[in-house]
């Protein structure tokens, strides 16, 4: 199963290299000038041009655009004449991150042909002509002995693809359009991908799917660096998936994060324990009142899906807040003067954070990794440092698909039977399934529906660093050495 491996490695490499260079530039004595020089440092005069690009000038222009996203700005809205040095200056003065966390680098995305059904040269012009006979729209005719599709009449249903005995008809897909579960990204009249932010649920699947790496996250790294440089007490809130990302022990990871300049590190699994207790009580109460089913509410991508596309699901979605919400509440209560930074496996949490005054910034795992490279932090050589509050095994397992439902189930009394249904990743099909459950007011498969926008759970998030399998192994080891949430109750 293609989890995070669907992310093309070369594009991740480029994005991460730019982040490292931006952080280095920020920490240098001339942030603005060293930022302006990034495309030239990466592609110096007379260097080889990557074989996917026409010339060094276009390659540098595209690297410049990628750096714009790294500085936290929209690539679409930035004029070509603005220098990276000016944007670096602007980034340093910014008070609040942008509203929409995704941005598209249109010059990089021109390579895709529009999604359509295409008759290849393999067409034999056969006598049976199943394609012509199957097409309900009369879109296929035989010209010069071969099938031809009339694009005006074709509805992209794909029936002809299925019936051709030579497999000569193919559906050409646009990876971002195909990956988007809600039809929020499509090519505009110029052939460039464009995100419709009224529909977008910030799941980040387009960013993972694009082989050109054209969809970027607007980074908040400069904002966080600025707060640390200014001596603000900055506290990291680390989501459970982070413990699978780097080759070290959880206690070493805490020490590595402190080396970046954070004043303290909290596990978001601590907030997950509050979510579990609240959600188990809520589930019990709902079932006692005769509810048919309830869905979880911890995944930011799913929450935005319900808000924007399936409002009829709202009565069935748990009212319990997310682990990030409860963790941030605890951190601000214990440290009212602190700046809080959530360490996230995905882009969707950036949207959730904007609606939560207790979460000041969100960084993803690629950004944290780049920061460690820039400072030369060797995680495997760090000392070990214990967390002040120990989270439960169940809370630490929230990042694995099925983990949330399992945690809730642990706390349910025997007379309240939960039958979990696991939605392991949002796709066009699973969105249809969820709409059906909401419309019918019931789900024939069970009564506790856990929804994860990403396949595999948070460990499959769009901005993770480690491959899925080794990350799962690392998290599972941590979970196995932790105490059950039941012990917190008893």
């Amino acid at each position, binding site marked *: 199963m293609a989890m995070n491996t669907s992310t093309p*490695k070369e594009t991740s490499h480029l994005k*991460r290299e730019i982040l490292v260079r931006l952080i280095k530039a920020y920490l240098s004595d001339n942030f603005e000038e060293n930022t302006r020089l990034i495309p030239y440092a990466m592609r110096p005069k007379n260097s080889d041009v990557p074989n996917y690009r026409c010339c060094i000038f276009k390659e540098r222009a595209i690297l410049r655009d990628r750096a714009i996203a790294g500085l936290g700005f929209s690539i679409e809205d930035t004029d070509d004449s603005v220098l990276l040095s000016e944007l670096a200056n602007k980034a340093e003065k910014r008070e609040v991150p942008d509203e929409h966390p995704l941005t598209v680098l249109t010059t990089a995305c021109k390579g895709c042909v529009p999604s359509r059904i295409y008759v290849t040269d393999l067409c034999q012009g056969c006598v049976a002509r199943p394609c012509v006979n199957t097409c309900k729209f009369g879109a296929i005719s035989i010209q010069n002995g071969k099938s031809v599709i009339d694009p005006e009449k074709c509805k992209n249903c794909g029936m002809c693809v299925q019936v051709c005995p030579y497999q000569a008809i193919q559906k050409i897909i646009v990876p971002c359009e195909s990956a988007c579960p809600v039809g929020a990204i499509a090519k505009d009249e110029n052939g460039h991908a464009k995100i419709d932010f009224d529909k977008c649920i910030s799941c980040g699947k387009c960013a993972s799917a694009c082989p050109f790496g054209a969809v970027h996250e607007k980074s908040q790294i400069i904002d966080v660096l600025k707060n640390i440089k200014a001596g603000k007490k900055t506290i990291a809130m680390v989501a459970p998936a982070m413990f699978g990302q780097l080759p070290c022990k959880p206690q070493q990871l805490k020490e590595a994060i402190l080396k970046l300049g954070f004043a303290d590190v909290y596990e978001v699994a601590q907030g997950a324990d509050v979510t579990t207790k609240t959600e188990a009580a809520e589930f019990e109460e709902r079932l006692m009142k005769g509810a048919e089913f309830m869905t979880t509410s911890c995944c930011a991508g799913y929450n935005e899906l319900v808000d924007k596309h399936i409002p009829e699901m709202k009565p069935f979605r748990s009212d319990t807040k997310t682990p990030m919400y409860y963790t941030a509440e605890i951190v601000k209560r214990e440290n009212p003067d602190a700046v809080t930074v959530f360490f996230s496996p995905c882009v969707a949490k950036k949207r959730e954070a904007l609606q939560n005054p207790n979460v000041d910034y969100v960084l993803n795992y690629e950004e944290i990794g780049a920061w460690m490279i820039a400072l030369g932090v060797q995680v495997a*050589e760090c000392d070990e440092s214990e967390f002040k509050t120990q989270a439960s095994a169940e809370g630490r397992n929230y990042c694995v698909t099925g983990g949330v439902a399992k945690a809730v189930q642990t706390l349910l009394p025997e007379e309240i039977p939960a039958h979990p249904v696991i939605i392991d990743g949002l796709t066009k099909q699973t969105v249809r399934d969820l709409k059906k459950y909401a419309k019918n007011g019931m789900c024939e498969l069970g009564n506790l529906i856990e929804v994860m926008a990403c396949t595999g759970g948070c460990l499959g998030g769009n901005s993770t*660093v480690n*491959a899925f*399998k080794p990350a799962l192994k690392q998290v599972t080891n941590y979970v196995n050495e932790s105490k059950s949430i039941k012990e917190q109750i008893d």
Partner: protein
Amino acid sequence: MDKKISVKVCLGTTCFVMGSSNLQELIEMVPKKYGDRVEVSGVPCLGLCSIDWEFSKAPYVKVDDDVIKEATVEKVLKAIDEKLK
């Protein structure tokens, strides 16, 4: 008997973030493919990324004494095949 080929996948922070996380599959795959002719392991930082600040060429893998820059599973397997010829 010939000397074993040694493959060292750098798992230092830089290499890991820049892509050796995706090379961990070599540690399972290589023994299956080559048996005991090749010895493969994940190793702590080889120090290659700090020379001239060459982090952008990470991840690094060493096949015997040869350094593979911007290593991929394909590149490493090719290097092993060359050695075994």
